[in-house]
């Protein structure tokens, strides 16, 4: 079975631009979470979506938004990019929403903002 997939793998943008990152969860998984991993640090939680509804949001500005589609895939959008948005963006999926469920990660999208 295919794991979590993310696209694109790498992205270069300039300050002020907008970016959209995509994620497809493991088949059968209905929950998708997004994390930001700045170089040298552990991942930080951005969003969780379940059944197309936002179920949690981390401490990130309103420039960050996301959505989940009927097929459970998800997009993360970041507007008005700043240099500090340069990071590895990880998507994780799980069957449901409870904390007992393990999250499985995709390979990530490396975003560089110049």
């Amino acid at each position, binding site marked *: 079975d295919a794991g979590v997939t993310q696209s694109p793998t790498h992205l270069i943008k300039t300050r002020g631009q907008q970016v959209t990152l995509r994620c497809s969860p493991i088949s059968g998984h209905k929950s998708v*979470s997004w994390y930001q991993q700045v170089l040298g640090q*552990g991942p930080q939680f951005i969003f969780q979506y379940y059944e197309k509804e936002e179920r*949690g949001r981390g401490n990130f500005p309103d420039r960050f938004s996301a959505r989940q589609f009927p097929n459970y895939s998800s997009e993360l959008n970041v507007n008005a990019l700043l240099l500090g948005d340069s990071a*590895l963006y990880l998507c994780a999926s799980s069957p449901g929403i409870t904390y*007992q469920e*393990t999250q499985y990660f995709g390979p*990530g999208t490396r975003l560089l903002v110049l």
Partner: protein
Amino acid sequence: AQTVTQSQPEMSVQEAETVTLSCTYDTSESDYYLFWYKQPPSRQMILVIRQEAYKQQNATENRFSVNFQKAAKSFSLKISDSQLGDAAMYFCALNYGGATNKLIFGTGTLLAVQP
């Protein structure tokens, strides 16, 4: 606040030897899950092992085992018979539930395996 601390930024081990990575955490919840994830240079975060707080028996997965000390809020990872492929960044993570199923990660330990 829930926190996870990994006090060893880097560790090194000889091939075939055993190494232990440390992790401490803080939570006021009575039930929670703890995880070790491995992130090789390829970036893919891979689950190594997980432990439920209510289970007293330490989890094991082949060469990987944990020492879970609930009272001390300690969750160390032991890697036996280390292999070159074990070289990676290792992250300890906590999921305590609440309204959101989210992982709280430590800062990671970079493990080097010497041939």
